[in-house]
């Protein structure tokens, strides 16, 4: 209960906002009965401090800590990022093309594929694209062809690799009996037959990764076959002097072909990038994220 002895405590509690609603009603009733104390109540109310909002801490940035997981997307240097992305894309594409060319180079050993016996009526030659950029991938590992020479110690002689073109008959090692039943040159294209004619009288065996010895029999030497390369010749004509550098390189033809294809791919990619760049310059880019559109004009 508010009295003249304790009213000041109630006034302070009222100024501090610590009175309950019931106590507040009691105090107001007391002040109504003693109006001369209302000025004292007003003095306590005015003695409350108010914060000066103009005083602010000016070094908040130094207190801010980095938040993990926060990602900032910088759009200021987006041109630089675009160029970097284009270069990275070019490198990736070049790598893919180079790998493909390398694989084609290994498959481009003109390895003749033999079909099962049931299909040997159809020569395998038409299925082989000789020195073509797109070579049918061989399901078999390329194997080395050796000729069995009567009278030799092992009876096996290595066939000299043919310059420029190697026409080797590859027979699955699981079916070596085919070699004895069917002449190998039936599976070969025209040039392959010429090669194999030299050893036609000899049985042929196929060994996987077997150490080979050079033949000393000159009769078994295979004459080089100069086969024109119509497809690559056409490519060379189209590319003109640009390919002359590649042709002069001291590497074998397979690698040259790979380099030519790589150069063609890079050229095409550069052309595409140039066209995209021109389109970007001619038009504006519109990014639509959810319901918001960002239009960038040049």
């Amino acid at each position: 209960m508010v009295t003249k002895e304790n009213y000041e405590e109630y006034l302070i509690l009222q100024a501090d906002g610590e009175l309950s609603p019931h106590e507040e009603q009691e105090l107001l009733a007391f002040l109504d009965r003693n109006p001369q104390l209302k000025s004292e109540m007003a003095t306590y109310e005015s003695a409350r401090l108010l914060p000066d909002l103009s005083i602010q801490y000016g070094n908040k940035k130094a207190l801010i800590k980095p938040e993990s997981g926060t990602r900032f997307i910088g759009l200021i240097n987006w041109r630089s990022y675009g160029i970097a992305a284009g270069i990275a894309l070019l490198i990736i594409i070049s790598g893919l093309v180079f790998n493909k060319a390398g694989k084609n180079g290994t498959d481009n050993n003109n390895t003749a594929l033999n079909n099962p016996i049931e299909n040997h009526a159809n020569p395998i030659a038409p299925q082989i694209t000789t020195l073509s950029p797109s070579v049918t991938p061989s399901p078999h590992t390329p194997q080395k062809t050796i000729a069995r020479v009567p009278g030799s110690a092992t009876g096996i002689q290595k066939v000299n690799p043919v310059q420029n073109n190697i026409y080797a008959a590859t027979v699955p090692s699981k079916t070596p009996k085919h070699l004895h039943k069917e002449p190998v040159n039936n599976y070969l294209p025209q040039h392959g037959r010429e090669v194999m004619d030299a050893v036609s009288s000899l049985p042929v065996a196929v060994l996987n990764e077997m150490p080979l010895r050079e033949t000393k029999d000159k009769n078994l030497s295979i004459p080089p076959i100069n086969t024109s390369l119509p497809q690559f010749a056409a490519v060379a004509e189209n590319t003109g002097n640009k390919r002359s550098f590649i042709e002069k390189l001291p590497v074998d033809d397979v690698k040259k072909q790979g380099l030519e294809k790589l150069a063609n791919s890079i050229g095409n990619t550069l052309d595409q990038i140039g066209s995209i760049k021109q389109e970007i310059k001619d038009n504006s880019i519109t990014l639509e994220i959810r319901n918001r559109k960002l239009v960038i004009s040049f």
Partner: protein
Amino acid sequence: MEAKEYNVCVKEWADALFRFACKCTGQASDAHDVVQASFEVLWQKRKDVAFEKAKAFLFQVAYRQSVDQYRKKVKVVFRERPEETFTPGNPDLKKMLDRALSLLDEQARALVLLKDYEGYRYEEIAQITGLTETQVKVYLHRARKILKDYLVSVEKIV
């Protein structure tokens, strides 16, 4: 409390903490150090302090730092506050209250600031300052009387 919430604390309460420290220490440079130290302690203890309790924690640290700094300075240098004369043309209530506040000791001043600036209740002030609720109530009542008496005396002069 995560770093993100800590940064929210900085944005929300750095100014209030600085104002509190300014009034407690009487020096902006000291208040700057108090704010920096308070947030540094909060950052170190962020794993133990919930976001809802962060403000009270900050003021608790700032209160202790401010009181310690004030007491340390009073021990080193005694500076008598120049008595300002009041003229009828300078009846600014805010300035009068600032002067009245300087009459309080560091603890009573901090209690008044916590009550008036931040609106804490007695119970919360007791938690921040480490006093009992009764002590807070008694100290605050004394401080209010001093402020009121000062204002009344000034009004009489004016």
